[in-house]
């Protein structure tokens, strides 16, 4: 038992040196394996990074690092982890939002935040074109990570929106969105990105700023499973199988360990709906819809 644990620890250290050296050097200055600190390292404000506690200014850098590692295999891993269901979730998300210029209206402006890979962006433009015959609305894709954005730009070349003015890619921090003017967007979407933000209330306040009156904030994110038996099974799957899949399929266990820990850390459906309401949005009904028993949830708020 002890030998097994020691072996596992040694394996973890050797496999994760690339990732850990970076983040642990940044935090403590010592190039070692996992060192879990229950107290804050400096006097500065701290936040959570998965189950670790890190200084706030470091989290952005660490998250960027995680996504730089996973950028090229992002979709492949998503398919493996969710058995392809993430495509259904995203399709439902976009059809529920029903984006597109209505007859007699002006072209809309969409903003997809932390949407580097372009999943939601292309779905929105396709939906608008197919269902509403809208070929003029503009999509802005922003992401803090330039590699994910480059991945999205590469994929956009294969769509009809490739090099046109209908889709723009910008590197932006969701808490500030410096390049996006006030009251300019009709729909703000964030899909599986908001749990990585350092300061979620600031991001919600910025979303409120950039949306036009009547604009919609829509968030697709992992959430708490409502059934306790299913929840136990889901936790077992998350913590045991997903990091293993990450290790076996793409050789990066730690990024996926961070992923499942960050899911666990994210507030519940009601808490998050309360945060959205605090930012000034009007909720429709309870403000959220559970998908797959609460594994994912769509939160919607309208700026009225």
């Amino acid at each position, binding site marked *: 038992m002890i030998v097994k644990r020691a072996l596992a620890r040694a394996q973890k250290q050797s496999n994760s040196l690339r990732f850990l050296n970076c983040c642990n050097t940044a935090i403590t200055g010592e190039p070692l394996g996992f060192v879990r600190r229950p107290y804050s390292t400096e006097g500065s404000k701290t936040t959570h990074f998965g189950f670790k506690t890190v200084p706030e200014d470091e989290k952005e850098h660490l998250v960027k690092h995680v996504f730089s590692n996973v950028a090229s295999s992002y979709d492949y891993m998503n398919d493996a982890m969710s058995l392809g269901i993430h495509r259904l979730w995203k399709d439902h998300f976009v059809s529920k*939002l*029903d*984006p597109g*210029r*209505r007859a*007699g*209206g002006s072209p*809309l402006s969409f903003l997809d935040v932390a949407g580097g890979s372009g999943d939601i962006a292309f779905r929105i433009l396709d939906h608008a074109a197919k269902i509403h015959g809208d070929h003029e609305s503009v999509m802005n894709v922003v992401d803090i990570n330039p590699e994910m954005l480059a991945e999205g730009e590469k994929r956009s070349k294969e769509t009809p929106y490739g090099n046109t003015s209908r889709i723009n890619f910008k590197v932006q921090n969701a808490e500030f969105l410096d390049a996006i003017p006030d009251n300019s967007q*009709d*729909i703000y979407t964030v899909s599986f990105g908001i749990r990585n933000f350092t300061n979620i*209330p600031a991001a919600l306040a910025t979303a409120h700023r950039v949306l*036009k*009156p*009547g*604009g*919609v904030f*829509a968030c697709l994110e992992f959430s708490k499973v409502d059934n306790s038996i299913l929840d136990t099974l889901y936790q077992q799957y998350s913590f045991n199988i997903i990091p293993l899949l990450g290790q076996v399929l793409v050789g990066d266990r730690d990024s996926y360990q961070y992923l499942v820990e960050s899911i666990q850390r994210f*507030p519940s459906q*009601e*808490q998050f709906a*309360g*945060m959205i*309401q*605090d930012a000034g949005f*009007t*909720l*429709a*009904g309870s403000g959220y819809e559970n998908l797959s028993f609460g594994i994912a949830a769509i939160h*919607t708020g*309208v700026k*009225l």
Partner: protein
Amino acid sequence: MFARRLYSTASSASKSTTQILDVSLKYVPELGFENALVKGIRELGYSDAAHSVFPQGTFNLVQHHLKQQRLALSKSAAELPTSTPSHNILSSLVKSRLRANIEVLGSPTRLSEAISIMTLPSNLPGSLEELHSLSDEIMYLAHDRSTGFDWYTNRGSLSAIYASSGKFRSSDSVFSRNNCSIERRSYYYIASL
């Protein structure tokens, strides 16, 4: 920030949504429910995307109409002389409610559009809830004092009477014939209690 709200925060949220619904209802006679909602949103200066605040779309507009008319019933009941017998109050309230449908919605075609929206399977629970609230309201205003199982049968029968009269009216038939049938049915009904 992370607190679970123990009180309802619906009031501030519904003020702006009620405003949109009120404005949209005015356009229903000329445009129909779907376009009236879009026009109401645009008139108040909101982006077209604001339709997301109504998760059931046009059914929320229909529900708003139903609720407004139900709440207006107490005003109509107050206008009747105090000595009116129960079955007369009953029939006059049902008639004024049916009349209000036509007045607010403009024509029987809009009424049949409303009924078709209400009978969509996803909207059916909401419509039935409104129908039951309506018959409860009418029975209460008609001084119904029944207890036990009668409470349920009274309201159930009134719902049936109201629904069939409403359906009859939506097909643009002769009003006077329909009026007599409501009075006859409600009289027979109260007499049987």
